[in-house]
């Protein structure tokens, strides 16, 4: 993308007037997507973005500029702008280590580059999903399906002498159904995604994704209002990982900890959760939605244990926070595009399997809520209060799964909820999503076995 010597000169330019650290992050991103709605394949959309973001760190201050012009002149003027922006702080210590190209070991191979696949085949996947969803029931009145792929080639060079590149391919397929019945309209959504190419469709059938979405919408037609207030909540494997992403994941990001904006600050080594909980953030998990070989600062992805048997073991780190603490990055520095500054982000955040039989967890619950699918969530890391939405859930009565309930929000407090996990199953599944922080969205996954939280507040309307 850019010649090594040009990168070296650009880094020198960035630190010419002083600074502790400089970095060039260059990116060539191609995306393609297509959407079917109302039985028609709408327009195919393709896009390309190329450019470089340059940052200069001086003390606590980061200066940042970016350019779509990857010529030496374009990079030089971005480097000057970043240096000028950083000059709000003191001069700092200037040094640029000669660049050494480092090789990257991919976590897995991409077999079928999406750009090599004919667009008609992508359209075919959408149409197969449409037919399958409509075949489920006459009550399915509307179906939309989306196909999206992205290839992101990145190149990172910094004043510590790091020079490294990566090539990331992601593919995702989603189906959204609307079912209409006597009680009104309901929706069902399912959208698996992996860090692989078009071979995604060797692993998932468009028909199966469509059927899951359709059945979810149909189920909700019969749903009664969700309960209101505190009750035990059982989360099916894969459905509840987002709870831990929100309840503690964000609070373990070192940038928020550093700003005293996390309830988990100063608690390493302490019991912060039920001893049944071991939580890892694993960027190396092959083919998963949040996986990469190196992060957006060039640090290799790692499997980081955050909570072990209930004890807080470590936070997640990016380069800037790690340098401040005199330690290595944990491979969690990510950015949405070259136009954004990196910050601490999760990858694939998993709660590890326990010993309980998943069916027995339900049998041992006299009354509660069983969550099969969740929407997104949100957390205030400073207070620990978090929410997440349920999109498919059922009542548990006398140890049996009974009627479905309508969508509702669940609310809890992170540290409190972690203590209240009282059963962890021996099964496991994952869920792909997009995590938003400070306006930047990045692909992440979460995963967990079937588990029970003794008490969570369910935001339904039923029960006086």
């Amino acid at each position, binding site marked *: 993308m850019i010649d090594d010597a040009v990168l070296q000169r650009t880094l020198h330019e960035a630190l010419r007037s002083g600074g502790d650290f400089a970095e060039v992050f260059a990116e060539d991103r191609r995306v393609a997507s*297509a959407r079917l709605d*109302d039985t028609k*394949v*709408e*327009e*195919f*959309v*393709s*896009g*390309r*973005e*190329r450019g470089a973001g340059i940052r200069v760190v001086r003390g*606590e*201050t*980061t*200066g*940042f*500029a970016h*350019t*779509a*012009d990857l010529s030496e002149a374009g990079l030089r003027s971005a480097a000057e702008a970043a240096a000028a*922006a950083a000059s709000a702080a003191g001069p700092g210590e200037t040094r640029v280590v000669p660049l050494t190209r480092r090789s990257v070991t991919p976590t897995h191979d991409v077999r079928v580059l999406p750009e090599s696949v004919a*667009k*008609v085949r992508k359209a075919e996947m959408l149409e197969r999903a449409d037919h399958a969803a409509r075949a489920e029931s006459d009550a399915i009145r509307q179906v*939309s399906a989306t196909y999206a792929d992205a290839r992101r080639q990145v190149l990172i060079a910094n004043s510590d002498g790091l020079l490294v590149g990566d090539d990331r391919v992601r593919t995702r397929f989603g189906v959204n159904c*609307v079912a*209409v019945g006597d009680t*009104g309209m*309901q*929706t069902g959504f399912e959208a698996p995604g992996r860090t692989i190419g078009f071979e995604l469709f060797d692993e998932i059938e468009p028909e199966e994704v469509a059927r899951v979405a359709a059945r979810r919408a149909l189920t909700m037609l019969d749903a009664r209002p969700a309960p*209101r*207030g*505190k009750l035990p909540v059982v989360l099916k494997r894969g459905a509840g990982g987002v709870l831990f992403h929100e309840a503690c994941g964000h609070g373990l990001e070192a940038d928020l900890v550093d*700003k*005293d*904006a996390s*309830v988990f600050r100063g608690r390493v080594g302490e019991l912060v959760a039920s001893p049944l909980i071991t939580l890892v953030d694993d960027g190396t998990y092959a083919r998963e939605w949040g996986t990469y070989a190196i992060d957006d600062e060039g640090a290799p992805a790692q499997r980081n244990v955050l909570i072990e048997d209930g004890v807080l073991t470590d936070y997640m780190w990016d380069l800037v926070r790690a340098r401040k603490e005199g330690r290595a990055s944990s491979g969690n520095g990510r950015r949405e595009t070259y136009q954004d500054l990196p910050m601490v982000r999760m990858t694939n955040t998993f709660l590890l399997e326990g010993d309980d039989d998943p069916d027995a967890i339900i049998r041992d619950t006299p009354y509660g809520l069983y969550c099969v699918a*969740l*929407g*997104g969530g*949100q957390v*205030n890391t*400073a*207070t*620990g*209060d978090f*929410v*997440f*939405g349920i999109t498919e859930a059922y009542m548990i009565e006398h140890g049996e799964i009974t009627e479905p309930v*309508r*969508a*509702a*929000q669940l609310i809890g*407090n992170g540290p409190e909820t972690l203590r209240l996990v009282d059963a962890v199953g021996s099964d496991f599944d994952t869920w792909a999503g997009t995590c938003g922080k400070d306006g930047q969205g990045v692909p992440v996954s979460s995963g967990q076995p079937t588990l029970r939280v003794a008490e969570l*507040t*369910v*935001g*339904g*309307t039923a029960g*006086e």
Partner: protein
Amino acid sequence: MSDTNLLALARSVAGAARDGEQIEAYAVRSRDVDVKVFDGEVESLAVAEIEGVGIRVIAGQRQGYAWAGSLDADVIADTLADARDNAGFGSPDEFYGLADPASFADRTATSLDLWRDDLLAVPTAEKVALAIELDALTKAIDPRVRGVESATYGDAAVESAVATSLGVEVANRRTMCSCSAYAMAGLGVDTRTGSGFSAARTFSELDPEKAARDAAERAVRLLGATQPRSQRLPVVLDPLVTRSIVALVGGALSAEAVQRGRSLFVGRDGEEVAASNITLVDDPTDPESFGAAGHDAEGVPTHRYELIGAGRLRGFLHNSYTARKGGTVTTGSAVRGGFKSPPGVGARALHLRPGAMSPEAILASVPEALYVQSVSGLHSGTNPVSGDFSVGADGLMVRGGEFAEPVREITIASTLQRMLLDVVHVGADLEWLPGGAAGMTVLIGDMSIAGA
């Protein structure tokens, strides 16, 4: 690169249309400054110039779209080729087509002055100084504010142009700036937070003191908050919360959502859908609104449009595609999320017609209510198709017209359909806010509160 004439560029792309082909070209350039301050020091300062092009091609009743983050001639040529290729693979749809200038020749665009040269003249150092000042101001308001997670300043000067092979040619430019603070009060798990902001077209109109005061007061007044019991109560919405809910309702009023059976308003045209004190208007011609625009994303003049009048559903928002499909005329409501996607349909400047009551009078109008200061999980907790509504909330109890104890870790739930019908008072305190809608204090007669 920053001297490129965007309209000339868009015109030259649109001019490449072949026989039987329609082309729309959109070109945009934005100059942005973003400052983040933490603990009195600049954490980051980013200066950026972003350019991009989006090209829509319609041929043989099929549509294709391609975009690129560059205005270089060879990149644009590739992008046009990609858009043409993409147009070969969608399904034919007889309603595809660009906006035809002949169909809106009788409409005049409102002339709006949304650009302030003086914003561009402000030295970066002054912008940095404002963010540092905001951080200090927020801490100074109340000793119980123990920290400011971030104090920010940001601005953008955006120029854009759209040209089509049917003869549309429109250039626009606007400036915007804002500052915000996020205050933390209390220690550990007893921490409460509050945010405040100020937004304006230019630097001199920003009010960092208001942003600081809002952030500090909103955090401090929640100190000691507890989880109340589950109950049903009247709910008073803060103007910011009203804004978010109004924007959600506006999304469900897009003809695109309605025509595809994906809106709670399907089949409700002409019906009573809200309390009689609800009149919902989208008025992009109001220069006070942050979404103001004289033309929509397809180059059609915008105008004031009443969506709900005295509780009755009057109509939906249309672009030229949904209008053609629905046998009506476009309402000038084509919107773009940027150059990376083709125009959709949406509101720009939604607002409820303000009522006569002040916020204080609304608080005093019920013996007991919940005042919702902020909500969380708005996207995961609301469904614009079924209307299900359940979101996390914090705020204060209201008794005898006064704020009483603060509450947290609750949800408020109803359905959007019910909430519209249950609106008791719409406040007089209309305030334009970023996010496509205005806010004001609103009283909803009955909602389900989940707590302990």
